[in-house]
């Protein structure tokens, strides 16, 4: 028999996400000094373009700005909030990063608004009145292919500090689906300040939700275990004014039946209890992704230990790109004590390229910022993060009064300092080089760190450095000896290196540490099959199949082990299901053909062996087996 599939690896790490903004640009308005500034001619184009997308019914703005009457009665308010640039909200400093969708008024536009308000907010001749802005009602991209709703409504309390709540939604799909766009309807947009959507493929968020009373679970930031390297490459971020998060061509993200969407919401009390029930609309494409970006996290949370009263406590991190890559988007993240946030790159020739600079960090207006144009960074470029914190009494947003020592953590009184950078390397596999460099940098910051050693092991293994990978996994196990995922990965690396006995020993430890770990059961069972211990393999493979009923590879291996232990009827049943789950599997077709031949069902056997040869025409085992079946068919009495 043949065992299909490489041993499965687990990848550990933090995932934190979120994209897509559809803010609007600026309309240059020109006026001559002598001309009267009027709503119709000068102000309406500015307001309709920059304010109305949020200031209209159902959106985040507290009142509508859709016509002269709306705007006139708030003229002095609008003058004031635009003068101090509180509105429209656009925290990045102009000229420090080429960001898409800048929602920032020009000095000239602000001056026009001031003049108009001061001169009594005249309407102007009716003939010059612009058409009121038109907006699409309902789903912005039309009816979604799949609508997911948070299971239970959640009530935001009337007052108190901001609420951070996470809701887990399961995607009822079968097989892989590629998502080209996502639209989030968060509920009351005046309450939901921003939302990050994370993909959880391990059920870890669901398990956490079950432990937390009430709908969802609390926490500003979510850390998820990730079983695969793929999913955490997209920012799925919603803020007021975001229509839909649409991925660039070729960059769809994948969900399957094991995927949960985790909605990480920042909620602001409004003065009355507010009931929200977010809904997510997904838009699919049949086209599998062809371009694979990666999220790089710059951070040094371990260095955050801010004494009370410190006004300018600086945390930095840097990361050297091991390969060429384009920067697509950035997402800075700090909490309430954060003050000044900078992200930039230094190219090998010394050129400094700004990604973003926020001089007056405001947690409430954090966002993912896609670049207007991808920024190419050659190999050897260094990404930099610099975040300054103000833990003094003078920082009104300081959650502690009087100020207290602030360290890193997930509560609003704790701090974080992250700069997520979405990069697109030239090749998909370049991401392993990016990951290796990321983990080596992490080890410089945190010697002996479990996650870094574990992920470095996986990256090295993927890059073909098995011996180094084994050493890294062993280091990870020194930090966390009971880690089922790392025992499993170490087993897989040892198996690749040809040490089957040592591999089996590691798989056994993985299964012992976590009996319901499907991949470890699968690997242990399959390795025992390879070692010829078929009977011993059976219970593990049965368990693997029970835990992952749709896993064709596990069924194939179970079928094979059953065949080897003489349970031919049961083997046929399992192998049929293996072929059903994965008709393109050479091994499953071959094994089923062989099992059917043993049952004397020669015609069916021949059909599956022929199918195997269609998948791989020169497969010697299938050829030999088919020849034997044909010979038996020829001898068969008519």
């Amino acid at each position, binding site marked *: 028999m043949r065992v299909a599939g490489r041993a499965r690896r687990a990848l550990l790490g933090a995932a934190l996400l979120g994209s897509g903004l559809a803010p609007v640009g600026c309309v240059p308005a020109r006026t001559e000094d002598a001309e009267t500034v009027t709503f119709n001619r000068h102000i309406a184009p500015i307001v309709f373009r920059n304010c109305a997308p949020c200031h209209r019914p159902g959106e985040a703005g507290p009142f509508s700005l859709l016509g002269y009457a709306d705007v006139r009665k708030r003229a*002095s308010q609008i003058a004031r909030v635009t003068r101090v640039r509180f509105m429209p909200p656009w925290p990045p400093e102009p000229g420090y990063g080429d960001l898409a969708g800048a929602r920032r008024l020009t000095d000239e536009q602000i001056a026009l608004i001031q003049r108009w308000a001061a001169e009594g907010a005249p309407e102007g001749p009716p003939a010059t009145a612009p058409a009121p802005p038109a907006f699409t009602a309902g789903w912005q991209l039309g009816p979604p292919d799949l609508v997911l709703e948070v299971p239970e409504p959640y009530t935001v309390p009337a*007052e108190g500090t901001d609420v951070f709540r996470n809701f887990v939604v399961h995607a009822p799909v079968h097989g892989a689906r590629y998502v080209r766009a996502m639209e989030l309807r968060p509920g009351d947009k005046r309450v939901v300040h921003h939302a990050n959507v994370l993909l959880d493929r391990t059920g870890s968020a669901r398990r956490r939700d079950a432990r937390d009373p009430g709908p969802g679970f609390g926490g500003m930031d979510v850390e998820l275990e990730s079983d695969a390297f793929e999913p955490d490459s997209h920012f799925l971020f919603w803020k007021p004014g975001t229509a839909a998060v649409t991925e660039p061509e070729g960059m769809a993200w994948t969900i399957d039946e094991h995927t949960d969407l985790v909605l990480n919401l920042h909620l602001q009390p*409004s*003065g009355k209890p507010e009931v929200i029930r977010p809904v997510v609309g997904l838009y699919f494409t049949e086209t599998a992704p062809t371009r694979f970006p990666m999220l790089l996290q710059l951070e040094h949370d371990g260095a955050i230990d801010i004494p009370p009263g410190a006004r300018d406590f600086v945390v930095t991190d840097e990361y050297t790109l091991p390969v060429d890559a384009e920067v697509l988007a950035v997402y800075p993240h700090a909490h309430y004590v954060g003050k000044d946030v900078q992200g930039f790159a230094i190219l090998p020739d010394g050129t400094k390229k700004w990604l973003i600079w926020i001089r007056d960090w405001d947690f409430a207006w954090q966002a993912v910022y896609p670049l207007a144009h991808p920024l190419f960074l050659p190999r050897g470029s260094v990404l930099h993060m610099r975040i300054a914190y103000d833990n003094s009494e003078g920082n009104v947003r300081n959650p502690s009064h009087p100020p207290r020592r602030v360290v890193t953590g997930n509560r609003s009184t704790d701090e974080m300092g992250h700069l997520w950078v979405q990069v697109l390397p030239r090749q998909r596999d370049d991401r392993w080089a990016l990951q290796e460099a990321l983990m080596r940098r992490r080890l410089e910051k945190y010697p002996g760190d479990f996650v870094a050693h574990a992920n470095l092991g996986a990256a090295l293994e993927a890059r073909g450095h098995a011996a180094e990978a084994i050493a890294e996994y062993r280091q990870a196990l020194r930090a966390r000896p009971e880690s089922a995922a790392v025992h499993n990965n170490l087993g897989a690396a040892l198996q690749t290196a040809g040490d089957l006995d040592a591999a089996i020993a590691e798989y056994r430890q993985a299964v012992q540490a976590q009996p319901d770990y499907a991949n470890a059961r699968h690997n242990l069972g399959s390795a025992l099959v390879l070692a010829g211990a078929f009977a011993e393999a059976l219970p593990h493979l049965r368990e693997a199949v029970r835990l992952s009923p749709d896993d064709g590879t596990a069924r194939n291996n179970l079928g094979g082990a059953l065949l080897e232990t003489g349970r031919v009827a049961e083997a046929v049943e399992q192998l049929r299901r293996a072929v059903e789950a994965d008709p393109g599997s050479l091994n499953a077709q071959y094994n089923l053909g062989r099992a059917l031949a043993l049952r004397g069902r020669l015609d069916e056997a021949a059909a599956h062996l022929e199918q195997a040869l269609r998948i791989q025409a020169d497969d010697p085992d299938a050829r030999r087996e088919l020849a034997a079946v044909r010979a038996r068919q020829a001898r068969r009495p008519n």
Partner: protein
Amino acid sequence: MRFPSSWSAVVVLAALAGLARAGSASFTGVVDLAGRRFEALPPGPGPTVLVFTRTDCPISNRYAPELRRLGERFAGRGVVFRLVYPDPTETPAAIREHMRAFGLGGGALRDPRHELVRLAGATVTPEVAVFVAHPSGPRMVYRGRIDDRAVDFGRARPEPRTRDLADVLDALTAGRTLSLRTTTAVGCVIAELQ
């Protein structure tokens, strides 16, 4: 001695020494939600708090729970709270719905001609003005913020450090005499009438 049974805005003007610039002898346009005219501030021996607000100001609305607490705390001590809605386009029905949704009690007044706005010198919502009875007519002793939670647009403390209105009412209900104090309130600008 006897206090006047109703206060005259003319006397208030004199007492405020120019702080309020009311233009008429008594209010002509201040009405409650049933449309009944209010010719003067509510009479009584205790302090009267005018709370300038509007239905769609998020900064005002976030104060609803605090206003409710203050109302409960001082109701037994003779303090009268009146919500004042200065936007002439806000209808009684919209105001009733606003009060219901945010659990705001006490009486509400509409001030479409900004007589109370001018009397108090209010400029934003939320902003409060506290009046006390005086032999020569009601006298304003405080105008400004409820507390110092809001520092500027988009800049708010997680918790207030100074609870200005509560401190004023504590002092008054403890029998102390206060002279006028003002603070700067942060909120939605009360638009001038056209």
